[in-house]
């Protein structure tokens, strides 16, 4: 395959006949018929649309004839290939790789996955042949292993000429395990939707029956079930007539309708529990400690189906197949749906994550769907660094082609806007375009990174995340300014981000004397502080878990309140200056669990429970949070930085990393995070790597394959310039000076320290109000008032006049065409096209002042999309 693509790249302008020859050569190693199909399509992409045209183009008769014959042959091959594809099997896997059965009811669903040379996967579970080495230990029905007697055996699986073995062990084959309320009954409520917010999980329950939302409080659920409405809800005399079963199976009127059938496993589980006398769990019952979904990655052709198997791990070291009891959902149904028994059905081309939820865990698998019979070949594009390697790897999985490299002028404009928030001057553009050095892009990135505007832009972004904003009776303007200056000094000094974060989180003292302590003055609520820290520094939104276990992630109320406990001992007192607050680490103060009033020990989110005695809890947290040990910190930061340059995070929204919102390219995120941590959290180095990558330098124009891609960075995004930068570049190109409160005239909008400083322009164009720490506070959606403000407001018309750029250029003796070129260069970083010049010439020929016409042109340029967008 590859040599075809190679030829396509290398011989883009070669005569078509040569390409045909290449295609012919590619077709020779039969029986790979699919490849014929692809070659044909490849040809079609580059060849005239019809054979007639092809003939017309090629005078050699022999060649034309050969082409016709070949076309007929290819068509025949394509039809055959589509009906009976037989791609090469390259790998065979079974999930899980071992089977341990622990009691009579235990079982294990196996999924056999075949991987083919083209990267696609198929579910071979039903076609595979199975055989036990030692009979009588276990049996296999519908790819599920059931116990027969105690012992050890091996299951042999054969498919497509390959063979796998799965060790099987069976213990307690004759014994029934006592039913567990938490492990078996609670999952029924989750899968049945009984404890969801719209049903009995509502704060006041539904129709007189309440369950804890998503099962955050099993003890109370048990109490309500077993002690409320005895004889009705639970009828121990005739368990089948308990309302909890009759309603769920639709035997009696139920607002929620029938949730499952009478013979379903869910119904049977409830019945077993009722028959056992509705026992609560004893002390020895294991806890669920983990969940796995397998296989983790599926590459399916449209309309294919594939099973997944879900296995829970318990605190006693055992596993259980919970495929039937897990709740499934897909984040992209049009691409891949998942049924409630774990069957994935592929539909449209794209990528989806299917998730299984069981107990407090949510796990996901990636599903890539490609069109059936797609012809695809990967062009050998250069890779500037590991970023390109990993982005391209993902694109190959998705069968997407990256767009071409953007032009030099576009690159300079893009990099200048992204790195410094400024536009290149006309001279800089011309110099850069004329430069022939092969490393000129890398050099210009390094030059831009050395400018102070780079730091200022990031100080602004951090100021948004830290919500640096004065507010009456809380944070004085002086405190906000000192806080901002501290941030600026820290970033300008190129201090590692983890050190800055550690200093911030452990800050004590006066908010004037030690400005990072403003972090704890800005938000004085313990729970909100914990939420903000999780969101800003780890990209995790734990807000849900304040009241119930997170429905789409692993965070439980225990996690939430244990994390909040790190912030429960922050003392505050008014300083001698009444505007100043002194933050200190107090000796007491605890967070209690709202359900059972337990005092929660501080515990890292998704980590250990550290020893905090006689220590500032915040210091213990900060040490862990900003260390390479924390899996979230580096990933979150690189994702934030990535999103700034690429228009979208690898996890998007950037501050909402969760199992149900996985990274679009986890390998890339991990590699960036690893690199960032290894480079001692030096964010300038990270930015340099991103901007040096070819991925960053791709054109915005999509090709046929990647037009629909919004998450995998196959082409550059078109982004409206954010409010502050837009204000600054309008000021820059018009050569005017702005005045913002608290800053000297001529200061730039990105330098505004206090989020409360008001500006009509910035508000209209969606600047972050810094009222929350959410990264999506910045709005770049267009609005009518933005358009009107640019058309009629003082942002453009007045500034064009005030700056007097046109008048100055004319005075310097420039011709109108030279002025036009200058204006285009300063606004668009490119020269006008001939068509544009011709059009403008008509205006210049009209009687009247040239200056007026040119000023009008300047105004038009400022109002154009090309100016307002970074592309």
């Amino acid at each position, binding site marked *: 395959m590859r040599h075809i693509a190679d030829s396509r790249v290398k011989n883009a302008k070669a005569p078509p006949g040569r390409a045909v020859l290449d295609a012919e050569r590619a077709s020779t190693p039969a029986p790979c018929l699919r490849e014929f199909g692809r070659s044909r399509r490849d040809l079609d992409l580059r060849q005239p649309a019809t054979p007639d045209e092809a003939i017309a183009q090629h005078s050699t008769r022999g060649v034309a004839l050969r082409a016709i014959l070949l076309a007929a042959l290819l068509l025949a091959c394509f039809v055959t290939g589509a009906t009976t594809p037989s791609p090469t099997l390259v790998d065979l896997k079974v999930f899980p790789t071992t089977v341990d059965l622990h009691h009579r009811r235990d079982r294990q669903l196996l999924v056999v996955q075949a991987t083919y040379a083209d990267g696609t996967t198929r579910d071979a579970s039903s076609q595979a042949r199975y055989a036990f080495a030692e009979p009588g230990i276990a049996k296999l029905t519908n790819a599920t292993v059931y116990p027969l007697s105690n012992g050890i055996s091996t299951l042999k699986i054969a498919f497509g000429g390959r063979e796998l073995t799965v060790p099987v062990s069976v213990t307690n084959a004759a014994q029934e395990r006592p039913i567990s309320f938490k492990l078996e009954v609670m999952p029924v409520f989750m899968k049945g939707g009984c404890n969801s917010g719209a049903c009995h999980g509502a704060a006041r329950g539904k129709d007189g029956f309440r369950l804890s939302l998503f099962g955050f409080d099993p003890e109370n659920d048990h109490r309500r079930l077993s002690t409320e409405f005895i004889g009705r809800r639970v009828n121990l005399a005739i368990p089948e007539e308990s309302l909890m079963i009759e309603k769920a199976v639709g035997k009696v009127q139920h607002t929620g309708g029938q949730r499952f059938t009478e013979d379903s496993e869910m119904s049977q589980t409830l019945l077993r529990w009722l028959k056992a006398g509705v026992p609560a769990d004893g002390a020895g019952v294991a806890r669920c400690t983990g969940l796995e979904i397998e296989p983790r990655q599926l590459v399916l052709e449209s309309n294919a189906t594939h099973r997944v198997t879900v296995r829970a791990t318990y605190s006693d070291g055992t596993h259980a197949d919970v495929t039937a009891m897990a709740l499934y959902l897909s984040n992209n149904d049009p691409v891949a749906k998942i049924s409630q028994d774990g069957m994935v059905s592929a539909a449209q081309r794209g990528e989806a994550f299917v998730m299984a939820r069981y107990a407090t865990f949510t796990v996901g698998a990636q599903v890539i769907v490609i069109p059936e019979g797609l012809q695809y070949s990967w062009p050998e594009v250069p890779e500037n660094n590991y970023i390109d390697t990993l982005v391209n790897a993902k694109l190959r999985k998705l069968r997407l082609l990256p767009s071409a490299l953007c032009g030099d002028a576009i690159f300079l404009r893009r990099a200048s806007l992204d790195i410094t928030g400024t536009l290149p001057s006309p001279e800089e553009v011309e110099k850069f375009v004329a430069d022939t050095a092969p490393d000129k892009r890398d050099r210009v990135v390094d030059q831009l990174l050395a400018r102070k505007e780079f730091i200022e832009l990031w100080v602004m972004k951090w100021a948004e995340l830290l919500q640096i904003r004065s507010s009456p*009776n809380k944070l004085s303007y002086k405190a906000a300014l000192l806080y901002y200056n501290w941030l600026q000094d820290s970033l300008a000094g190129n201090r590692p981000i983890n050190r800055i974060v550690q200093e911030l989180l452990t800050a004590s*003292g006066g908010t004037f004397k030690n400005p990072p302590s403003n972090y704890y003055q800005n938000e004085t609520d313990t729970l909100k502080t914990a939420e903000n820290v999780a969101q800003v520094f780890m990209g995790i939104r734990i807000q849900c878990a304040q009241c119930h276990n997170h429905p789409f992630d692993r965070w439980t109320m225990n996690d939430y309140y244990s994390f909040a406990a790190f912030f429960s001992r922050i003392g505050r007192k008014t300083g001698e200056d*009444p*505007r100043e607050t002194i933050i*200190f680490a107090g000796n007491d103060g605890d967070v209690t669990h709202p359900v059972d009033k337990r005092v929660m020990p501080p515990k890292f989110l998704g980590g250990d429970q550290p020893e905090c005695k006689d220590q500032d809890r915040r210091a213990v947290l900060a040490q862990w949070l900003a260390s390479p040990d924390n899996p979230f910190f580096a990933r979150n930061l690189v994702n934030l930085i990535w999103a700034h340059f690429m228009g979208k995070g690898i996890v998007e929204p950037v501050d909402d990393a969760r199992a149900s919102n996985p990274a679009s390219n986890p390998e890339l995120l991990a590699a960036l995070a690893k690199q960032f941590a290894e480079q001692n959290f030096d964010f300038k180095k990270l930015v340099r790597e991103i901007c040096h990558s070819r991925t960053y330098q791709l054109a915005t124009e999509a090709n046929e394959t990647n037009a629909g891609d919004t998450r995998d960075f196959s082409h550059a995004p078109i982004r409206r310039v954010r409010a502050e930068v837009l204000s600054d570049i309008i000021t820059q190109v018009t050569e005017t000076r702005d005045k913002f409160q608290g800053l000297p005239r001529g200061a730039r909008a990105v330098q505004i320290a206090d989020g409360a400083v008001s500006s009509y322009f910035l508000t209209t164009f969606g600047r972050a109000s810094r009222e929350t720490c959410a990264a999506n506070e910045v709005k770049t959606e267009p609005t009518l008032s933005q358009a009107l403000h640019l058309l009629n407001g003082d942002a453009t018309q007045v500034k064009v006049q005030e700056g007097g750029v046109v008048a100055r250029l004319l005075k310097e003796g420039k011709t109108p065409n030279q002025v036009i070129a200058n204006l285009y260069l300063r606004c668009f970083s490119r020269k006008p096209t001939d068509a544009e010049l011709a059009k403008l010439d008509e205006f210049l020929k009209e009687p009247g002042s040239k200056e007026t016409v040119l000023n009008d042109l300047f105004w038009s340029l400022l109002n154009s999309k090309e100016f307002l967008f970074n592309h």
Partner: protein
Amino acid sequence: MGNRKWVGMFSDLHAYQPWRVKAAALRTAPVSGPHILCQALGLVLLLLGGPMTAPAMSPLLASTTPLGGQRGTELELTLRGERLADAQQIIWYSPGIQVLGIQIPTNQAQTVKARIQISPDCRLGEHALRIRCASGVSDLRTFWVGPFPTVNDTAPNSDFAQPQTIPLNVTVEGVVENEAVHYYRVEARQGQRLSVEVEGMRLGRTFFDPFVAIMDPKRFVLASSDDTALLMQDPACSIIAPAEGPYLIQLRESSYGGNGDCHYRLHVGSFPRPTGVFPAGGKAGESISLKFLGLGAADLTTQMKLPSEPSGALAVFAESGGQTAPSPNWLRVSPFPNVLEIEPNDDRDHATSAGTNLPIALNGIIDHDGDVDWYNFTATKGQTIEVNVYARRLRSPLDSVLSIHDPNGNSLASNDDSAGADSYLRFTPPNDGRFFLRVSDHLKKGGPDFFYRVELTPVAGSLSLKLPDVSRNNAQERKCIVVPRGNRFATLVQAERQNFSGDLSLQAVDLPSGIVAQGDPMPGNQTLLPMVFEAAADAPIAGKLCDLRCKPVDTTQHLIGNLHQDFVFVRGEPGDSIYSQTFVDQIAAAVVEEVPFKINVVEPKVPLVRNGTMDLKVVALRRPGFDEPITLRMIYNPPGIGSANEVMIPKGETNALYRINANGEAEVRTWKIAVLATAPVNGAAAWVSSQLTSLTVAEPFLAMKIEMASTEPGQAARVLCTLDQKAPFEGKATCRLLGLPNGATTADATITKDDKQLVFDVATTAATPVGQHRSLFCAVTIVQTGEPIIHSLGGGGCLRIDAPKPAPVEVAAAKPAPPAAKPLTHLEKLRLEHAGKQNPDATGTPK
């Protein structure tokens, strides 16, 4: 409860700013000169040009230019304000400044120019002043005396590249306009000390929080300062010049604010700028060795003989190389000896011993981060000890935490912030023996200037006085005694007692001639009392500072309370917090020109009874031609007594009734009250007072219960009142039933001292609303010696108006109801309309 009291007691100390305290410092400052408190130099009153503008009351002083001056020099002071045309004198609250002459520009009431001479030994720092005019005394403002000659800030100096060049050891006076940054260039030799200090917020002009930095010519900041423990919002810093050459001083508002009122005095020089002194106090009369802190490697020590009188805040000025710091450091002069810490004393085993004799003062420095200092002392069981840490109160950066431990290390008492940032506690030893005292910083910080002094003293009483604020917006209003000739002035005096309770006698000492003060002793359960000052008709027009004192009526108590008067200059966010204020220990008093009105209260001959009201008669004496309305205001309401906020004597009239009332809990006793009166005179408010008048609160003569009555609208009711006669009265008392519902009326009734009950026949009308009307009460007026004693009795009495019984219903044959008109659909209406057009009469549709 006990703890609450102590916290409250020290709440004022939070805003304690010793540089304002001249009570002790002033007289004991090492540089204090001849004690001339006021310079009454109307000696050369030059009237230039035409006649003086008509004298007006309430002169206003807004500012002085320059803001300060160098000691030992003579300069012209421009005082700006309003209604200053009859200025006669500048009253200085501290010695050292002599007024050589006052000049009032022609037809100008806004400006006064004064030639002043600052004596070479004048105390450095703030000097409070007022202008006394013939018709009034101005607000209090401040003037700053410094050690250096003054230069003015001169544009352009707002650019690093274009600084204003100044010599060393000068004071620059300037104004920071909005977002302005000023740069000054000075030359310094290598190794020379270069210090800067700014007076900004202290000047009391406006909210101005300055920032200062010393930079080298390459823009590197060598030292900077924003807020300091020593000077609060005002900055100071210093460096030892690393090389010979120019240095740049940057000065701006700390948040790049500023405006035309943001004045500063920037001292730039080679003076030492210590941030503290150790030990921060000593025994009165003894000679001690002081070490100035915060000067880096350069050690500066001095020997000093302490004054013989104890002092809460004694100013000491560091001097080195012939240069003096422009503002002082502070220490305490106590009647007991010092103990100095002996390092290491970081644990109990190495505690510095304070010996066995209390009272004692422990002096130490928390000299590095995490440092703790331990002391031990011996005390006897039951002997209550006050333990006071003086650190922030002496402007140390330390935020102290104090605890007392037994020999086993168990904590017996601890405190963090009961005295502002300082710690304070009372400790009663549970047994005889040795105890341990621990001092540390709240944030576990430390440094070479984190000095402190812990005083262990027996509980002692103290007293002080002040005039309370009378206006929310103007802290200066009526804070001096201004008595028009032949008239009166009154003020409330507020006493603060610590560890003492008892009656106090008030005394105004050294009043200007012709003024007499009146005031009863202040009862032990009161903190406020009025004093009235009366000037003779021929008293000379003059003014001076005088003392206001209080002392216990019980002569066995040897306490004296002096005036400790605050003047707030600058308030700001949050919550009107105080940012700049000053304290003085004397009050300005003056006899001023006559005002055209005077008031008297007709002293009531009868008491005000509990739950009763009284109309106090106020009579105005107007000079012919003066008919402005006069506003009356009770100077204060004694506890349990209420009154209208203001009562007006209308234009041209001479009488008003001022209604006052007493609640049921008002103390039965005789109070002294006075009524203040104000009226516009020549466009400004003039204030006078009535004489002090006795007001007696007494028990009511009788009690009454109104029994519930009921009737129907339009019917009569009899309201029975049961009387409980408490004290006999003469003649008949008039009773009026009040609070009746709409339409209900009754006639007044009379009773005598022998009546047991009283009945009102109440008539109602059909309009009287049905329901229970619980608003009834009875005004009983007893007339004694011709004056009414009005009781409000029987409150909450109830008159129930019942709904009349329904009339018997007549059963009449019901007429068949006309058929309800059928609502028509749009289509039906259209049809009808159509039919109407065909045959208009059929539908009645107008033609």
